[in-house]
């Protein structure tokens, strides 16, 4: 240790949870956080919901009040981005040319929205990742216009629900046959699509945007099948890519930084947490990206414990939730492992409970307005310490040995 302390690159939830855990565990060295935006860490989920549609300016989404950072001696470096990691001299270079030395580094600067080349350069084409995006998009929501949303992931669905609730005409354009099909399969994807169409949204599936027409602003989207969609505003929600550009040449993986279950990267003293990682899951034996709140929290905490040399608890199950209309969608587990899906539609059509099974064992659950179903499933899946993929792994190993 040289007294340079902990440096956190990224001003989001993962970085904040790391700082909080360090202080809670009694770490008394310096902690500095480099935040690309001009705001202290804030809560992102409201950006597609109440923050987006707020007209009062009174909605506070900061995760901690400003004086928390003073009391806990966490120094925020606002409005600065990292541009280079110098592994050998243990320094990070910022976009103003300054360099920050560190003993231990947490990389937690997240991800950025994937863009569509055909829609670049138009002023009414939006993505939604941060406060600035929400402030630009907000005024275009609730105007009674026609909103076209490209991509039916959670961001697209939540923006659709927020805009619909304010009376906008909304079209969702999805390349796959149903929303979230790659994660949840076609049956569940179909149900989720129906939630939106029943609420007045036009859902176009297996549909792709070919080009846009308009002068400065998109006025019409031309689809690959030749049809045209007139629109006033376009939101693109087609996934995110890890913000690793500044790590070029560092030896870390640019398609998602590989970490173990304790948030350690391949370089000693350098940790990563949140959207930017590709982390190891001991239950599946695989590395995966998970761009959700709960992963950011767990990995941020794990990084702090690892920095202090303390044991890191076994990571919880992947989980996420999404609030839309009067619905709460909750998910837990590993649907990608399932070989069978059981769907139960509730007495009320706003309720849905889905069980994902592998070899008749529960591996994941999704429920809409059925929190108890998710809680029960979560407890059951938690008890599975290894998803039987071991046999598959062993088989593979046997095959490769023979």
């Amino acid at each position: 240790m040289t007294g340079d302390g902990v440096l956190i690159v990224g001003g989001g939830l993962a970085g904040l949870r790391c700082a909080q855990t360090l202080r809670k565990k009694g770490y008394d060295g310096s902690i500095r956080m480099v935040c690309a935006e001009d705001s202290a860490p804030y809560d992102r989920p409201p950006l597609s919901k109440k923050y987006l549609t707020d007209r009062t300016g009174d909605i506070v989404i900061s995760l901690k009040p400003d004086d928390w950072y003073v009391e806990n001696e966490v120094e925020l470096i606002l409005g600065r981005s990292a541009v280079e990691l110098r592994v050998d001299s243990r320094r990070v270079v910022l976009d103003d040319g300054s360099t920050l030395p560190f003993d231990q580094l947490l990389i937690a600067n997240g991800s950025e929205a994937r863009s569509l080349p055909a829609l670049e350069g138009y002023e009414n084409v939006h993505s939604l990742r941060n406060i600035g995006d929400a402030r630009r998009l907000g005024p275009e929501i609730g105007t009674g216009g026609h909103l076209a949303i490209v991509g039916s992931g959670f961001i697209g669905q939540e923006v659709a629900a927020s805009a619909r609730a304010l009376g906008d005409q909304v079209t969702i354009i999805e390349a796959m046959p149903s929303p979230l099909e790659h994660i949840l399969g076609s049956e569940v994807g179909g149900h989720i699509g129906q939630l939106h169409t029943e609420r007045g949204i036009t859902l176009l599936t297996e549909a792709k945007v070919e080009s846009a027409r308009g002068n400065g602003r998109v006025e019409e989207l031309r689809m690959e099948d030749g049809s045209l969609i007139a629109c006033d505003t376009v939101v693109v929600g087609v996934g995110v890519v890890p913000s690793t550009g500044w790590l070029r040449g560092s030896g870390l993986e640019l398609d998602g930084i590989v970490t173990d279950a304790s948030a350690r990267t391949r370089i000693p003293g350098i940790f990563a947490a949140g959207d930017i990682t590709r982390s190891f899951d001991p239950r599946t034996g695989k590395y995966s990206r998970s761009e959700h709140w709960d992963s950011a929290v767990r990995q941020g905490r794990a990084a702090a414990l690892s920095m202090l040399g303390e044991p890191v608890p076994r990571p919880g199950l992947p989980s996420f939730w999404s609030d839309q209309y009067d619905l709460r969608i909750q998910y837990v587990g590993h649907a990608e492992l399932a070989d069978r899906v059981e769907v139960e539609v509730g007495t009320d059509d706003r309720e849905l409970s889905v069980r994902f099974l592998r070899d008749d064992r529960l591996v994941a659950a999704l429920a809409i307005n059925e929190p108890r179903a998710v809680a029960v499933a979560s407890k059951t899946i938690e008890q599975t310490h290894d998803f039987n993929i071991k046999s598959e792994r062993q088989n593979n190993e046997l095959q490769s040995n023979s």
Partner: protein
Amino acid sequence: MNCRAIVDENSCSGHGDCVDVAPGIFRLEDDIAVVTADGPIELLIAAAEACPAAAISVVDPSSGEKLYP
């Protein structure tokens, strides 16, 4: 009958929704919800149902019977 909520620390992500539902029962201690009092079953289950991470269980403290989930 007063019931008891239990927060699974490893699952709790500190959303704080339980505190919004039942402020007299839950408190956020840094980033984790802690239980500060026992309370009526309806209130505790409402808080447990509001938890996006499904981290809250409810038990009968005298018998240990599991009431939620």
